[in-house]
C-alpha cells in the first residue's frame, strides 16, 4: 500500500479501507484507461427546467438505467444554485456540440448558432429593453400631464407635443398653447381665479389617486412580484438564488404597466430601479428561446448581468455607467465575456431608445445637461460639504426606511397594502400641488435644478433682479437675488423637506418604485440651495480673500447647476453606496471630463460618511431585512474562526447523516430522506473509516429513486443502492440493485477542519459553492452550507442568525 497511484480495481476491493471486510470481490468492467466520466453522464442529457419529470421518453429510460432521471440537476424554488455544477454542465454541453461539429452541416450550423447565441440574446435584450423604456417614457410623460389637462388636437399628446408646432407659446410659458386645456379650463371655462385653482387641485389629486389605485390593484391581482424596486432581489438572484416567476412574463407586463401609473401618480419614486427589473425580465424571457441559456442557470445569470447593465443604460442614457453599475453593484459573477456582452447590449439599448426619441430632443434622459463652466479648486470645500450631507442623508434614509419597512412587515400596517398606497398618494398629492417644485415630476425638477441659468431661461430659479454684463457672452454673470428668487428658495426648502419625508414612506410600498430619482432630487435641491447661497456670498462678499482670487465682480464664477449635480451624486451615492459607476453615470449625463473630480470628491466623501454611520447601503439592508441568502462579495470576513466552528454537526451533536457507497437499501435511503431535511448527503466508503467518496443531493436522490421505482422492474425497498463503479452480479433471490453513481458528485469540495473561515468564505464567494465538506486527516467530519456561513456571519456581526430564511 505504499503506492498511491490510481488503480481502478483497487477502487472496488482493496482501496476501500484496511479495516473493512474485504470479502466480496467484485467484477469490475472499468479498465485503467477509461476513468469514469461522471460529467458526461450527468450533463449529456439536457434536462428541461423544473418538474417536467412525468413527461418524456420513457422507453429510452429502460435501455439506459445509468442515465440520470429527468429532473436531476434542477433546483427547487427558493434555493441556491451550485455554480460549479452549472458551469460544468455548460462546458460539457459545449464540448458535445464542438465534437459533433464536423459530422454534418446541420451540426455545424448548430455549433455556429450556439456560439453566436450569446451575442444574439443580448442584442435582443437590448432591442426589447430599449423599446420598452421608450414606451414607458412616452406613456409616463403623457400620463403625468394628464393630471393637468388634455390636448384637444389628439388626446395622446402630452403638453409639450401638443404645443409642438404652435406659434403661440410665449417666452415665459413655453408649453402653454390654446390646444392644451387644463381641466379647469374644460370644466369651468376659465384658467385663473380661485375656483379654477380648486378644480385643478381636485382633478390633480383624483387623477393621482386613480393612477395609484390602478397600479396597486393590478400588482395585487396579477403579479405581486412586480412591486418594489427589484434591485435587491435581482442582486440575490444573480448571486445564485432562484425565485421562480420573479422574472416572468406577467411580472414584466404588469411591472411595465404599473410603473407608468406609479410614476404618473406623482408619488415620490422613480422609474430607474424598476427599469433594471424590466430589463432583467426581458433577459430571462429571451433566454427561453435559446437552449444554451434555458437549461443552464449559471449561463442565464450572465445574460441577466448584461440585462441589469441595459436597464441602467436606458434609465440614464449611460451605457458605460450601466456596465459599471452591473459590475459594481449588482453582479456576482462577471467574467470578461459578460463585460463585452453587457457593453454591447447597453449600447444597443441606448441606440434603440435614441432612435425612438421619446423626449423629442435626441436625448435619452430628461435631465441631460451640457455646460462647461470651469470650477475653482476652492469650490471643493462646498462639494465635500455636499458629500457629507449626502452621506448623512443616505445613512439616515436607510435606517428610517428599514425601520418603516420592518414596521410594515411585522405590524398591522402590512395588512392594508392598498389602503397604504392610497393614503400616501393623497398626502403626496395634497401637499405637492401648492408648491410648483413638487407639482412637476421629479425628473423635470432635477432637470431644472441641473440647468445653469442662461439668458434663455425663464425659470423662477434664474429670476435675478438686475441683469448686467456683456450681452454677447451666453452665460449670465453673478448677480443679486430678486424677491422671486428668494421665494423660490423658500419653496425649494419646503420641497426638500417634503421629498425627504415622502421618499422614506414611499419606497417599499406595493407599487413599482425606484429610488434613484427621489434621492437625486433631494440632493439636487440641497445642492442648488448651497449653490445659490455661494453665489450670493460671492456677489456680496467678493472682496473676501477667498473669492478675490477667482471671483472678480462681473465675472461668472459659481455655477449653481453644478452644485445641484454634485449634490444629486452625493445623495445617490449615500443611499446606494455606488462610487465609480455613479461618477461615470453623471459623467455621461454631462459629457465632460471637467466635473469628474468634484463628482468623485462628493461621491467618495458621501460613501465614507455613510459607511461610518451605517454599514449597509439600502439594497443590502433590504436583502438582510428579507433574509435572502446573499453572500456579500465586497466586505471582508475578518473573524478568527475555523471551519470546524461553523460546520454541521457541531461537537456533541449526533454525527452527520451519510450514505455508504454500498450496502444501503432503498428503504434505508427513504427513511433517511424522511427523517432529515438536509439538502444533500455525503457518500462514504464505510461508517467506520468515514472516507469520502462523493456527495448526493437530496432532490436528485428522491427523483432517482422515484424514477427507478416507476421505470425499472424489481426495484423495491430492499434493493441495494450502489454508488460504486461496479455492482455485484444480482443474485436471483434479491431485488434488482440500483446504480446511482451517475447522480453522485464525485468531486465534492472539501476543506480541512482547521481551515480559517475567511478562506472558506472566499472559496464560497469565488467559486459560488452551495456546500463544502469538512475533513480531518482525510476523514469526513462535517459539512458547511452557504446558509451556515450566512448564519455564522450574522452571529459574528451580533445579528440574529435566524433571519437567514432561505437555503
Amino acid at each position: 500500500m505504499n503506492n498511491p497511484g490510481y488503480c481502478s480495481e483497487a477502487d472496488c476491493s482493496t482501496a476501500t479501507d484496511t479495516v473493512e471486510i474485504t470479502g466480496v470481490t467484485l467484477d469490475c468492467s472499468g479498465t485503467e484507461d477509461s476513468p469514469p466520466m461522471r460529467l458526461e453522464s450527468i450533463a449529456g442529457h439536457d434536462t428541461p427546467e423544473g418538474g417536467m419529470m412525468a413527461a418524456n421518453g420513457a422507453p429510452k429510460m429502460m435501455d439506459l438505467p445509468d442515465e440520470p432521471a429527468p429532473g436531476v440537476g434542477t433546483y427547487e424554488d427558493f434555493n441556491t444554485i451550485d455554480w460549479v455544477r452549472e458551469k460544468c454542465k455548460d462546458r460539457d454541453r459545449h464540448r458535445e456540440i464542438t465534437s459533433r461539429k464536423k459530422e454534418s452541416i446541420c451540426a455545424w450550423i448548430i455549433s455556429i448558432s450556439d456560439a453566436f447565441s450569446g451575442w444574439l440574446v443580448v442584442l435582443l435584450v437590448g432591442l426589447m429593453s430599449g423599446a420598452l423604456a421608450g414606451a414607458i417614457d412616452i406613456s409616463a410623460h403623457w400620463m403625468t400631464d394628464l393630471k393637468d389637462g388634455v390636448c384637444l388636437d389628439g388626446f395622446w399628446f402630452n403638453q409639450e407635443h401638443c404645443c409642438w408646432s404652435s406659434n403661440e407659446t410665449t417666452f415665459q410659458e413655453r408649453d402653454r398653447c390654446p390646444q392644451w386645456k387644463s381641466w379647469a379650463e374644460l370644466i369651468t371655462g376659465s384658467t385663473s381665479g380661485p375656483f379654477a385653482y380648486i378644480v385643478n387641485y381636485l382633478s390633480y389629486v383624483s387623477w393621482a389617486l386613480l393612477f395609484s389605485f390602478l397600479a396597486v390593484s393590478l400588482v395585487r391581482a396579477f403579479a405581486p412580484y412586480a412591486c418594489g424596486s427589484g434591485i435587491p432581489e435581482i442582486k440575490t438572484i444573480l448571486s445564485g438564488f432562484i425565485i421562480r416567476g420573479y422574472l416572468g412574463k406577467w411580472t414584466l407586463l404588469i411591472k411595465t404597466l404599473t410603473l407608468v401609473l406609479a410614476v404618473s401618480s406623482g408619488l415620490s419614486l422613480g422609474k430607474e430601479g424598476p427599469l433594471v427589473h424590466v430589463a432583467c425580465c426581458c433577459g430571462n424571457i429571451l433566454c427561453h428561446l435559446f437552449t444554451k441559456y434555458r437549461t443552464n442557470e449559471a449561463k442565464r445569470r450572465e445574460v441577466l448581468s448584461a440585462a441589469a447593465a441595459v436597464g441602467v443604460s436606458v434609465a440614464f442614457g449611460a451605457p458605460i455607467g450601466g456596465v459599471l453599475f452591473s459590475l459594481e453593484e449588482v453582479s456576482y459573477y462577471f467574467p470578461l465575456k459578460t463585460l463585452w456582452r453587457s457593453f454591447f447590449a447597453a449600447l444597443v439599448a441606448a441606440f434603440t431608445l435614441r432612435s425612438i426619441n421619446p423626449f423629442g430632443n435626441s436625448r435619452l434622459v430628461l435631465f441631460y445637461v451640457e455646460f462647461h463652466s470651469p470650477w475653482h479648486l476652492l469650490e471643493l470645500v462646498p462639494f465635500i460639504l455636499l458629500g457629507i450631507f449626502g452621506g448623512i442623508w443616505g445613512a439616515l434614509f436607510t435606517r428610517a426606511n428599514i425601520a418603516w419597512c420592518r414596521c410594515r412587515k411585522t405590524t398591522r400596517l402590512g395588512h392594508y397594502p392598498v389602503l397604504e398606497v392610497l393614503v400616501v398618494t393623497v398626502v403626496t398629492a395634497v401637499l405637492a400641488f401648492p408648491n410648483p417644485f413638487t407639482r412637476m415630476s421629479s425628473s423635470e425638477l432635477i432637470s431644472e435644478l441641473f440647468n445653469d441659468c442662461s439668458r434663455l431661461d425663464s425659470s423662477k430659479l434664474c429670476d435675478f433682479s438686475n441683469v448686467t454684463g456683456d450681452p454677447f457672452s451666453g452665460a449670465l454673470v453673478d448677480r443679486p437675488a430678486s424677491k422671486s428668487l428668494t421665494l423660490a428658495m423658500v419653496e425649494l426648502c419646503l420641497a426638500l423637506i417634503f421629498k425627504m419625508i415622502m421618499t422614506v414612506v414611499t419606497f417599499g410600498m406595493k407599487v413599482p418604485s425606484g429610488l434613484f430619482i427621489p434621492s437625486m432630487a433631494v440632493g439636487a435641491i440641497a445642492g442648488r440651495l448651497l449653490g445659490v447661497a455661494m453665489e450670493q456670498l460671492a456677489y456680496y462678499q467678493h472682496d473676501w480673500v477667498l473669492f478675490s482670487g477667482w471671483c472678480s465682480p462681473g465675472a461668472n464664477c459659481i455655477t449653481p447647476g453644478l452644485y445641484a449635480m454634485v449634490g444629486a451624486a452625493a445623495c445617490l451615492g449615500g443611499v446606494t453606496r455606488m462610487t465609480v459607476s455613479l461618477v461615470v453615470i453623471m459623467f455621461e449625463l454631462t459629457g465632460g471630463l471637467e466635473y469628474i473630480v468634484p463628482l468623485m470628491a462628493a461621491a467618495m466623501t458621501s460613501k465614507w460618511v455613510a459607511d461610518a454611520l451605517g454599514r449597509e447601503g439600502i439594497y443590502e439592508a433590504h436583502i438582510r431585512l428579507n433574509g435572502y441568502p446573499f453572500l456579500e462579495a465586497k466586505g471582508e470576513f475578518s473573524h478568527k474562526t475555523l471551519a470546524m466552528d461553523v460546520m454541521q454537526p457541531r461537537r456533541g451533536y449526533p454525527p452527520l447523516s451519510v450514505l455508504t457507497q454500498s450496502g444501503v437499501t432503498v428503504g434505508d435511503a427513504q427513511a433517511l430522506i424522511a427523517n432529515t431535511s438536509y439538502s444533500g448527503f455525503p457518500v462514504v466508503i464505510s461508517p467506520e473509516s468515514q472516507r469520502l467518496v462523493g456527495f448526493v443531493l437530496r432532490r436528485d436522490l428522491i427523483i432517482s429513486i422515484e424514477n427507478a421505482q416507476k421505470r425499472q422492474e424489481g426495484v423495491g425497498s430492499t434493493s441495494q443502492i450502489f454508488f460504486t463503479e461496479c455492482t455485484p452480479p444480482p443474485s436471483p433471490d434479491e431485488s434488482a440493485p440500483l446504480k446511482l453513481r451517475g447522480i453522485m458528485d464525485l468531486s465534492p469540495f472539501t476543506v480541512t477542519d482547521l481551515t480559517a473561515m475567511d478562506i472558506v468564505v472566499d472559496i464560497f464567494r469565488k467559486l459560488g459553492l452551495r456546500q463544502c465538506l469538512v475533513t480531518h486527516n482525510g476523514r469526513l467530519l462535517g459539512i458547511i452550507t452557504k446558509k451556515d456561513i450566512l448564519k455564522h456571519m450574522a452571529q459574528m456581526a451580533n445579528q440574529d442568525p435566524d433571519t437567514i430564511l432561505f437555503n
Partner: protein
Amino acid sequence: TKSFEDVRCKCICPPYRNISGHIYNRNVSQKDCNCLHVVEPMPVPGHDVEAYCLLCECKYEERSSNTIKVTIIIYLSVVGSLLLYMLFLLLVDPLIRKHDPYTQPLQNEEDTEDVRSQAEGAAGRGNTVLERVEGAQQRWKRQVQEQRKTVFDRHKMLS
C-alpha cells in the same frame, strides 16, 4: 418620410435691448434651421440682425407623432383589457365556479410547488384545447395566489 408636423426648428430669443424674449417655431429642414430663416418678422432693424441672431438659440427637433399615438393607444387598451379581466376574475369568476368542487382544496394545499405543477401538467394535458387553456389558467392563478400570499400576506419577500 417625416410627416410635415413632425419636425420643427425652434428658436429661443432672449430679451434684447427693449425687445422682450420670444420663441419662434417653424417647420423647416435641418439645413435651414437658423435664426435668419426662422425668426420672422425680424424685430430689429437690419444692422442689428446679426447681433440679435447671435443671442438666439435655434434647435432642430424631430419627433414621431405616430409612435406616440400608437404607444399611448396600445398602453391604454392593454391596461383596459387587464382591468376588465381583473373585474371578471373578481366578480364573475367566483359566481361561475362557486359549485366547482375541485379548485377549492388545491388552494389550501401546502405542498411544494413542483409536485403541484406536475399534477397540473398532467391535468393540463387534457383532451380539448379549451381544457388545456383552462388548466394553464388554473395553474397561473395558483401561482399568482402563491405569490400574493408570499408578498402581501406573509411579507416573506419584497417588504
